[in-house]
């Protein structure tokens, strides 16, 4: 259910994003999707990769501080109001979306969005009850090939 996301601390300066990408390139690890959250001084690079244990190890060996977080990849109807319907599931029960970002591909009229919840287990339960598909980790890590 849950998938592993890697986060890296980066200073908000020119050239600081390229190095971790080069590390992953050398290891043959594919980035499935990513997002950068930024402040004036620093940023957090979050990404879903094809082989997270290998990527995490390689980045740490290169001197980065890497955090592994469990997130959910949720299929959201790709039509007006689709995301609103999914978000409405969490509104009542005070489940907070810490952040979200999307995959660059869709599947059969569905967008796939990464959610970081403060209460992931409760979120899974609600999604399941509502019949919303939470994408399996294997599918996500191999998404580049199946999409």
């Amino acid at each position, binding site marked *: 259910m849950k998938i592993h*996301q890697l*986060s890296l*601390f*980066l*200073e908000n300066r020119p050239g*600081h994003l390229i190095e971790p990408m080069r590390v992953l390139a050398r290891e043959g690890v594919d980035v499935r999707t990513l997002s950068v*959250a930024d*402040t004036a*001084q*620093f940023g*957090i690079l*979050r990404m879903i990769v094809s082989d997270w244990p290998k990527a995490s190890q390689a980045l740490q060996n290169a*001197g*980065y*501080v*890497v*955090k592994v*977080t469990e997130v959910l990849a949720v299929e959201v109807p790709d039509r007006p109001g689709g995301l609103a319907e999914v978000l409405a599931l969490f509104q009542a029960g005070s489940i907070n979306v*810490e*952040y979200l970002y999307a995959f660059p591909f869709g599947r059969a009229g569905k967008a796939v969005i990464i959610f*970081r919840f403060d209460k992931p287990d409760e979120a899974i339960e609600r999604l399941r009850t509502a019949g919303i598909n939470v994408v399996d980790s294997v599918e996500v890590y191999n998404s580049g090939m199946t999409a």
Partner: protein
Amino acid sequence: MKENPEARATAFHPASAPDYIPAPLLRGLQLKRLQAIVRRAYERVDLFRERLKERGLVPDDIQSLGDIARLPFTVKNDLRDTYPFGLFASPLEEIVRLHASSGTTGKPIVVAYTKEDVEVWTSVMVRTLASFGLGHGDVIQNSYGYGLFTGGLGAHYGAEDLGATVIPISGGNTDRQIMVMRDFRVTAICSTPSYFLHLTERAAELGIDMRELPVRVGVFGAEPWTDSMRRHLEACSGIKAYDLYGLSEIVGPGVACECYLQDGLHFFEDHFYPEIIDPQTGDTLPDGAEGELVLTTLSKQAMPMIRYRTRDITAFITAPCACGRTHRRMRRISRRSDDMFIIRGVNVFPSQVETALLQVEGTLPHYQIILTRQKGLDEMEVQVEVTPEIFSDKIGALEQFEARLMDSLECVLGIRVAVRLVEPHSIQRSEGKAKRIVDKRNS
């Protein structure tokens, strides 16, 4: 418009009379006072008595001023170890004032004054201001911080006793300082030199030329400053910028000051006995050699300081001063023998920064202190490397962490400084040890 600042400085002020005591009389007075203060400390301060006993000394062994070299040193840690009242030589009910300064452990150093001590302090500040040519009729804006810091009240009492008009504005609120300076027709200002530079620059932005205002004297201290800084300040403001020296452990401001010749600082030797020692061996150095300044309070009742190591590096100027004062001069303080630095008039040790970081993190991160000067004001930024323990995938968590570091630093240092999180291994290490301070203030 200004009057010529030197016209008054060269005139004799009655308060300055003790500055001209003939040297033989001054030495006799010093010996008498030294013998009395050693006896007082021996009888009333446990730490001092034990140290004398260890050396087999008694107060009667002080037969000449040279005998002072037989006495043990006092260091800053002694004040911390005996926190808060352990070095007091007067019962608390005789103490009329307590001040405190920051210490490396986060605990302040406490200093005490009896009524007579405050009077002596006031008298040396009167003599300081008089030697800068100030007196009755002057309007003195006191921009030193009031509070536990000795600068504000020390200058205040001196200025008031001098008969000047005192504006106790304290530090901060630059635009109001400039308005007061102009509207109240201020003739002298007490502040750190860097803050006055900031005032001058801000005044120019507001369309006010400091050279057109009545202010003619700057009473500058609480941080080291260079002669080039002095020339710059004098040129852009039209004032005479004078240096004074002091430290809370001895009395506060008023230990030594310049005369109108601005060529070294005269000690007030009737109250403070200076020595220059080799900071490594502790040996007394010949006159004129550069070393660490050691001071003994000759008259302080509440808290006598015997051979206090200031960590300030200077040298005696051996030639007599053309102003006629008989009290010895030292060169302006160029540097310190430890790693302390001064930011906005506040003493800061790297170990204090470590204490603050430890309180938040539990372990010591790699960090670096960057000192810069922006618009004439000293700024300090603490860069902290991100560790796996503190790193989060959530921005809010990291920002909270930064805020906690800032709060902790403010709590320990007493001033608010900037914090910046940086990437691991981005702070340079030399020989496995990080360089803790990068000082870009004069570059």
